[in-house]
Structures are given as structure tokens and as C-alpha cells.
């Protein structure tokens, strides 16, 4: 023992002190501070989203319309990238060198550690080749996705299309992540929640190089992706394609409804496009091409165009007057032809005439007198007008029908307020708004509303809200499509006008173009004045007269008289739907309709 042996205590003191300091630090690090546990989970946990396939869409006969095809995205994790042959990669995935380099730069700016998509929608054929060479490109990965594929070139507007989510979608619904696909229009949009299925989540543990090592918690926290639900549409694909064929080189719209169910059989907005144009890599350029087209092929006329109903509206006016008993079946109004006042008549016919003949002849003066009889029945024009308006609204006109395709236009049936503003209170009367009597003036109806109006007439007074989906896999369509809605017109008041409509088809000068052998069709032509050029031709019809199977409306823009194009086209469609083929005697009409080019006449 020497005199410094006591210093051993100092030395031991230092040892124990540092040991204690470390233990305290470790206590803080391992027990008190929770952030390291979180960091550790962040380090190893990689959540890989499993994208479900979207639901398929069938037509009403079970024909596949929309399916899925595999596609692959190419991803990059910049940190792991080693030198590679840029040109070779460009050639494999089919993109320009500059584009690829720009994308890689973008990915680097986003994150060096997280993967970013640099090439989207690589076809399975390209993918097969790429896969063989991928080992040469360190840091590049592929991710399988599904894309829409169309088994038909028809029905683009009804089916709608799928696109990448927008910032708005992301903010609205946290189901979506960047780069996810979402229905943008048509059925794809309105049935998005059924079609999209449910994304799954696989949790993996990765090592420092982001390589997957193992499943996290033995996969117990994984969520399996649920495939989207298949849908059966009400669309009759054959009829749809036929309607589109008839509409070659024409502008306009067709809507056909099964009156008994409210199921939409066909919806054509012409010009139309092939739905396949809005899928895949060419989508961007195709989309801008369609967008810049002056004929507006992307604009869905069936739902968004507010046409005047023209003479087709006369049927409704006649029924309202009968219901209001402001006219009876015995009422006769005289017509002075072109000298009539305040509305001229363009047709040559007997005078005076009753309601049935008036419908056949589409007599303007009769309809004006009928309309006036409704309005003048009440003390003030406004009162009478509002009664009239209530009847019109009960036909689903002037407001959205609340169909299952979103983005409907309201149409327009002005309120009395509108006329008060325009002419001053009590400063207007039936004569002021006389255009309404012949379906002109402020009235705007979409083809869908007009077709539904046709279905109501066919049903003699009620309708189901028109819809395009009839079956949802493991689900039910909305209750609103199974609820009958009644109008304010009693069934017996439909019969006289239907009588008139049958005569239109069978007993007018244009009957040869629209009379279908063995089918009793009831219809009404219309010629809609329009400020943009030649009149639109419109035809509303249903058939057969008893137990109707189809109600249809055809608009052909800038084509003149309703009987010239709209009526023959409608008759062909009715014949096609009911008989599945066109009678030999009418083939010439079919040919003529297909061949006529109304787009390039100017």
C-alpha cells in the first residue's frame, strides 16, 4: 500500500459515474423517449398498396362492354440507381430520352429514398421484354396496375372514362392516393364506389436498401384488396351500336327507354368517339384532340344539351287542357293556315279540327287556343300559368331527373317570376308566352327528359326514373329507380293524344319513312327552330301502342323537318329493338340514313 492508494477510489468513482451516466442516457433513450420506436417502424415498414381490379360492366344482354387489362408502371428509387444505359431503357419502355431524363430528375427532387413512378402504363408485351432486362437497371422497379379496356367501340359517353385523381378528389376523399385512378364521367363516375373495389395493403419489412425482407407482423395487419363489383347495364349494346351507325356524320342525340322499367336502352350523343381512345399512353393526345374538336364530341348531348321540344310538346299541352277540362274531345278550333294569328300554321289541313287531328297535323293555331284555354281558365295569367307549369314539372321536365348518370342539365320551364321580371307583374298574358304552346320559347329539355316524357305517354301517366344500371353484383340498385312516379294527368286523358300519335306515324305524308310493318308505333315529329342555323329535327315515339317496349327520342341537329331524318332513324331503332332486324322493305331507309352526311353540307 502506498500513499496514492486512495486514488483508486477516484478512479473507481470515474468508472461508476460514467457507467451511471450511460445507464441514465439509455433509460431516456429506450424507455422515456417514444420517438425512436416510431423512427424504427418508419425505417423498416413499407406499405405496398394492392390495387384491386375495377368491376366489369356488361350490357343488358350479358355482353361484356368494359374489362380490365394489365399494365405496368415503372418506378425509380433514385438512391439505388447505378449507372445504366439510358437509351436502352428508353427503347424498352418506349419513351423519348429527354422525357425519361426529365422524369428521373423530377423523382430525385421528390425523394432519393422513396420510389416515384417515371413511366406509366407499360403494355404487357413491352413489360415481358423489360422484365428480362430489368436486372441491368438497378433502382428501377415495376408495379402492376390495371387499365380499362373496352370490348366495344360504342357507348363512350354512357360508360364514361377513368382518369388519374385530381387534387380535388384527393382533398374530398382520403381513399385515394396520388396517381390512383378514378371514374371521371358516365357510369365510371356515378358507380365509382361500386366499381373501384377496396384497395388492399400489404405491410413489408425492408432493409436499408429498401429491399423487401419479410412480411410485417406475419401479415396479420395486411388488408386484402377487394375486387370491384361487376355491373349490368340497361344499355342494349347492339341497339346502341346500331344507333351510332345511323348517326354517322350527324350531330344529335338518341335516348331510348324501356317504359315499363325506366331502363335506358340506348344513349347516343353524336358525334361520338371510341371509348378506347381515352385509355393508355395515347390518352393525353387523344383527349386534347377531342377537346379541341369544334363538333364537341366530348359534350354529352343526351344529358347536357337543352333543346326546345318543339311540336313534341303539343301532346303535353293537349293533355293538360283535357285534364283541366278547358277543352274536351269535342272542342274544335279553326285554322287559317299561314294567315292564322297570333301563330301561323305551316300545314295544310281541314279546319276547324279536334284534338286528335290537331296532333296528327301538328296544328299550331289549335295548340295556341288550347294553351290559352288553360291559362285563361284562371283569374290571372300568372295563376293559370302556374297551374300549367305544375303539370309540366310532374313529367320530370325543367329539373334534373336524378338519373344514375351524373352531370344532368336541368332544362328550363320558366317560373311566373321570370315573366314578371321580363314584362312586369300582370303585364303579361297567354298571348305573351304563346311560344310555349308549340314547344318553343324559353322551354328547354334534354333528350333524356324528352325520352322520359315519351315513356310517360307510353305508360299512360307514370314513370320510373331513367337509369343505366340494372344490376349490381351482390347489391341492389337504388330504391329511387324502383319507385313509380305519377304525373298529374289521368290515364284516360292519354288515350286521345296517343290516338293522334299513332296517326302521325301511320297516316301522314311522311308515313312511308316511319311506318314499321306489324308494329303499331305512336310518335310525334318536331322541328325545332334554332338560332344557330338549320332547324333541328326531332322525333319522339313509343311502340307498340299497347304494352309498349320502347320509348325513344331522336334529335338530328340542323337537319330540317322532323319527318325527314329524326323520324326514320327512330323508326329503324324501334324496329331493330323489337324485331332485332330491319324488314327488307325498309333497308333502303336504313342505307339512306347511314349514308347521309349532315356535318359536311356547308
Amino acid at each position, binding site marked *: 500500500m502506498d500513499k496514492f492508494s486512495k486514488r*483508486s477510489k477516484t478512479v473507481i468513482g470515474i468508472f461508476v459515474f*460514467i457507467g451511471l451516466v450511460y445507464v441514465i442516457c439509455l433509460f431516456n433513450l429506450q*424507455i422515456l423517449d417514444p420517438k425512436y420506436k416510431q423512427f424504427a417502424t418508419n425505417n423498416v415498414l413499407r406499405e405496398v398498396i394492392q390495387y384491386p381490379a375495377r368491376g366489369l360492366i356488361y350490357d343488358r344482354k350479358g355482353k361484356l362492354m368494359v374489362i380490365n387489362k394489365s399494365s405496368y408502371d415503372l418506378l425509380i428509387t433514385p438512391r439505388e440507381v447505378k449507372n445504366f444505359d439510358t437509351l436502352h431503357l428508353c427503347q424498352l419502355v418506349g419513351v423519348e430520352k429527354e422525357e425519361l431524363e426529365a422524369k428521373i430528375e423530377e423523382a430525385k427532387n421528390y425523394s432519393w429514398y422513396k420510389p416515384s413512378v417515371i413511366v406509366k402504363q407499360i403494355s404487357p408485351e413491352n413489360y415481358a421484354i423489360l422484365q428480362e432486362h430489368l436486372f441491368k437497371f438497378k433502382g428501377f422497379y415495376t408495379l402492376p396496375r390495371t387499365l380499362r379496356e373496352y370490348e366495344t367501340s360504342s357507348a363512350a359517353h354512357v360508360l364514361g372514362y377513368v382518369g388519374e385523381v385530381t387534387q380535388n378528389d384527393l382533398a374530398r376523399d382520403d381513399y385515394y392516393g396520388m396517381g390512383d385512378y378514378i371514374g371521371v364521367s358516365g357510369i365510371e363516375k356515378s358507380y365509382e364506389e361500386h366499381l373501384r373495389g377496396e384497395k388492399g395493403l400489404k405491410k413489408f419489412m425492408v432493409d436499408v436498401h429498401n429491399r423487401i425482407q419479410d412480411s410485417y407482423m406475419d401479415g396479420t395487419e395486411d388488408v386484402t384488396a377487394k375486387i370491384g363489383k361487376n355491373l349490368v347495364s340497361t344499355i342494349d349494346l347492339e341497339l346502341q351500336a346500331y344507333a351510332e351507325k345511323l348517326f354517322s356524320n350527324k350531330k344529335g342525340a338518341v335516348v331510348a327507354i324501356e317504359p315499363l322499367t325506366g331502363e335506358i336502352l340506348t344513349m347516343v350523343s353524336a358525334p361520338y368517339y371510341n371509348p378506347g381512345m381515352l385509355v393508355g399512353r395515347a390518352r393525353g393526345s387523344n383527349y386534347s384532340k377531342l377537346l379541341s374538336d369544334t363538333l364537341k364530341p366530348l359534350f354529352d348531348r343526351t344529358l347536357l344539351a337543352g333543346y326546345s321540344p318543339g311540336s313534341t310538346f303539343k301532346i303535353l299541352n293537349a293533355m293538360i287542357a283535357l285534364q283541366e277540362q278547358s277543352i274536351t274531345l269535342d272542342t274544335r278550333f279553326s285554322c287559317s293556315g299561314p294567315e292564322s294569328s297570333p301563330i301561323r300554321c305551316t300545314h295544310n289541313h281541314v279546319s276547324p279540327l279536334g284534338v286528335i287531328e290537331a296532333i296528327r297535323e301538328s296544328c299550331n293555331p289549335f295548340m295556341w287556343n288550347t294553351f290559352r284555354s288553360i291559362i285563361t281558365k284562371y283569374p290571372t295569367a300568372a295563376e293559370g300559368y302556374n297551374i300549367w307549369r305544375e303539370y309540366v314539372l310532374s313529367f320530370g321536365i325543367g329539373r334534373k331527373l336524378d338519373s344514375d348518370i351524373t352531370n344532368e342539365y336541368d332544362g328550363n320551364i320558366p317560373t311566373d317570376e321570370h315573366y314578371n321580371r321580363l314584362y312586369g307583374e300582370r303585364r303579361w298574358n297567354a298571348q305573351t308566352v304563346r311560344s310555349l304552346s308549340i314547344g318553343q320559347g324559353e322551354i328547354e329539355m334534354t333528350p333524356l327528359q324528352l325520352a322520359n316524357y315519351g315513356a310517360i305517354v307510353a305508360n299512360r301517366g307514370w314513370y320510373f326514373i331513367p337509369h343505366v344500371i340494372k344490376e349490381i353484383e351482390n347489391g341492389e340498385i337504388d330504391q329511387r329507380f324502383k319507385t313509380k312516379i305519377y304525373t298529374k294527368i289521368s290515364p284516360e286523358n292519354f288515350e286521345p293524344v296517343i290516338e293522334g300519335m299513332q296517326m302521325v306515324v301511320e297516316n301522314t305524308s311522311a308515313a312511308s319513312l316511319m311506318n314499321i310493318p306489324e308494329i303499331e308505333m305512336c310518335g310525334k315529329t318536331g322541328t325545332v327552330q334554332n338560332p344557330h342555323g338549320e332547324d333541328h329535327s326531332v322525333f319522339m315515339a313509343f311502340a307498340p301502342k299497347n304494352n309498349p317496349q320502347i320509348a325513344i327520342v331522336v334529335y338530328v341537329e340542323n337537319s330540317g323537318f322532323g319527318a325527314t331524318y329524326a323520324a326514320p332513324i327512330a323508326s329503324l331503332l324501334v324496329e331493330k329493338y323489337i324485331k332485332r332486324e330491319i324488314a327488307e322493305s325498309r333497308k333502303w331507309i336504313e342505307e339512306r340514313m347511314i349514308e347521309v352526311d349532315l356535318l359536311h353540307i356547308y
Partner: protein
Amino acid sequence: MFNLTEKPRRNNLWANIDWITVLIYVLLVFMGWFNIYASVYNIEHSSIFDLSQRYGKQLMWIGAAFIIAFIIILIETNFYVFFTFFIYLFVVFLLVLVLLIGSEINGSKSWFSIGSLGIQPSEFSKLAVSLALAKYMSTFGFKIHRIKSYFVMAIIILVPVLLILMQKDTGSALVYLSFVIVLFREGLSGVVLFFGTLVVLLFICALIMSNLVLNIALLAITLIILFIINPKLKQFGFTLLFFGTSFGLIFFFDLLVNTNFQPIDLFVISSLTGGVTSIIYFARKKIKDSVTIFVIFLGAVFFSLSVDFVFNNFLMPHHQARINELLGINSDPLGVGYNVNQSKIAIGSGGFLGKGFLNGTQTKFNFVPEQSTDFIFCTVGEEWGFVGSLVFISLFIALVVRIILSAEKQRSVFSRIYGYCVAVILFFHFMINIGMTIGLMPVVGIPLPFFSYGGSSLWSFTILLFIFIRLDADRLEQPIMLNSGN
């Protein structure tokens, strides 16, 4: 010098061995091996005898270490005493040789590559220095407070340190600081330790504080200490007056001449003049303690001013970065701070009981670099949690404390000094290594004794420890082998 009557006692050799220390050693080695196994574990290579894997190799090193330990126990202690000088020279020779023909691993030119086997001479030089110090300081008539003693001790320690620094192996060189504790035990003035601590504190403060704040703080502390040890109001008042006038004069000078002094310049210059005046004042009053205080004050001011200069001009960029990271001056968790950050995450995620053997995700999936060597403690922290860390730290502290206590019991000065050397070397490795993994020390690559993967380090620590165990066994065996006391 040789004891010729050792034969009967020879039989007692195994009984005289400190089996508790041996047990702690074996425990540490096997705990280390399990953690190496866990840190490099993967399903494809799960056989523990797979020699292509680190745990397989380590098992081989461990076997060899046990044989080495056994041989050391069999060797007469006199051998080391006798051959100390040659061992020392041989190691120095190797250190020079490695500079010439060594291979560079991780930026340090400190390895001999013999086939696939790497040997690091600096691992063995600690042993040589320990032996040499023990031998020199235990020579008859050794007095520590002689110029010659200081000189020789400095030579013994600094020659290997310089050679190791030339290999750019700062971590290993840092360990030689630990010998100061041995010298302290043998009579080196505590003032050295005090100043050593002061210098380190000042260095850190100078880096993390602005010079102005630091200098004001230093002056305030100096004045407080002055007042405590010399509570005479009149003298204190004079001191304040010196500093006040210095400041005032220099301020006016600055205004007159328009020298554009910065506040720090003003303050430093007035501190210096005030300090010097105070020294002269107290020297004339013959109040020695007060003079000393102001000398230290002036030294501290100079030192803090020079730190930035030294830091920026003498330290290598990666050392600067690591120190900046440690002190929180610059934080770069994906760059310089990556290791430490990941290491803290691994340890911190262990929680109280840890994630269990082979279940550590951070270490298994390679988030922590150097996880089987310098950062092996991360595996302990992650898989065995706070409890495991506590057990490990307790075992290690128990080992070094036991060595100190045992060294104090030695009758031979050589054994005692050698024992201290062993304890402080082990302790310094422990302190720097663990401190580094939990972010208390800068990242310098030195292994955790008995734990880290690597043959050189395991063998050198085994030799280091077992020579002491053998010397300790001799304590009971031989009454007096060398001179005792000084």
C-alpha cells in the same frame, strides 16, 4: 530474480486464478458472439459454424482466444517482465512496418493483410505500452515528479500514438489518453486531470458558444471564484476598477481613432489588460492564489480564442463534421449523423425488454452500419432492451472495477500498474464505444472489448486481460517477485 522454490506452489496455480474475472470475460465474449450472430443473421446462413459468415469466423477467433488465454496462464510472469522491452520494440517496429506495407481499410492504414486474415498492430501496442509503463514505473527508485520520468513516460506513450495517428486511426490513438489515469494513480498531480477536464470543457464551450458570451462567462466565473477565496471588498473593488477602466479606455480609444472594433475585440483586449493589471496588483500584494486565478483566466481566454483556429486548421474535415454533429452545431441525419442517428433509433426502439433475440429489425436489416464491429452495442440495445443494456454495462463496470480492486491488492508494483493499464484501456474503449452509439461521443471507430467482431481486437484484449489474471495468480503464489513500493 527467479524464484527457484516455485515447484510446490505450481500446483496451486489454477486455484489461484481469479475465476470470477475469467467468468465475466467468458460471459462477455459469448454475449458478444450471440449479438454478432444476431446482427448478421439471415435465414440462408443460419448454421452457427458457417465460416463464410462473421459469426462463424468469430467463433473461430473465440476458440483461438481461449487457447491463447490458456497459454498465457501457463507462461511464467517473469517472461513479460523480462521481455517487456523487446515486446515494446517489436510492436513499434510493426507500427512502422504497417505504415510502409500495410493495407488501407476504411481510410486507416493500420492493417496487415495475411491472406484473408487481417492483423492490426495498433491493437497490440496498447499491451506493449502497458507493459513498458509498468516495467519503467516499477523500477527501483522511480519517482514520478522528475523531468526524466516525465520524459521517458511521454516517450513510451507518445511514440506509438504518433505512429497510430500517422495511420489516420484517431480512435485508437485516443485510447492512449487513458494512461493519464494510470499516471494519476501513481502520483501525477490531480491538477493535470483538472486542467485536462477544463481544457475539454473549454473546447466544447468555445465551439458551441459565441466567443463574446464565453469570455463574459469566463470573466464572471473568475470574479466569483476570486471573491470566494479572497473575500476582501477593497481588493475586489480594485479588480473591478482595473477591468472597468480598461474597458472604458479602450472604448474611448476606439471612438477617437475609429478603429472599428467589434464588441468581441473590445472585450478581449480589455480583459487582457484588466487581467494583466490584476496579476501585477495581486503579485505585489503577494496573494498567490489570486494571481493563479487570473493566470488561468488569461490562459482560458487565449485558449478559447485559439479553439476555432485549431478546429478549422488542424482537424480533418470529417472530424470537424463529426464533432459538429455531436455538439448539435450542424445536424445532418442522412450524412455525417447517419450512423449515430440509426444507432440511436436501433437502441431506442429496444424499449424495456427489447425485441428479443434475432428480432431486431434495425440491425438485422442493416440500417446500422458497422453493426457487428463498432456498433455492436446497437444489437444489445435493440434486441435485449434496457434490461440487456443494463446487464452489459453492469458486467463491464464490474469487470474494470474488479481489476482496479485486484490491482490495488498486488504486492508487485509492476502488477499493480499493469492492472491499472488494463482497467483503463478496457474502460476507455467501453466509454468511447458506448458513448458513440448513444450520441454522447464523436464517432471514432474503436471496438467494444470482447464484444465487437474481429480477431485482432479479441485476441489483444484477451492477452491484455489474461496477463493480468496470470500476474494476479502470482500474487498468492510468490511472496515478492520484484521490488515493491516507490
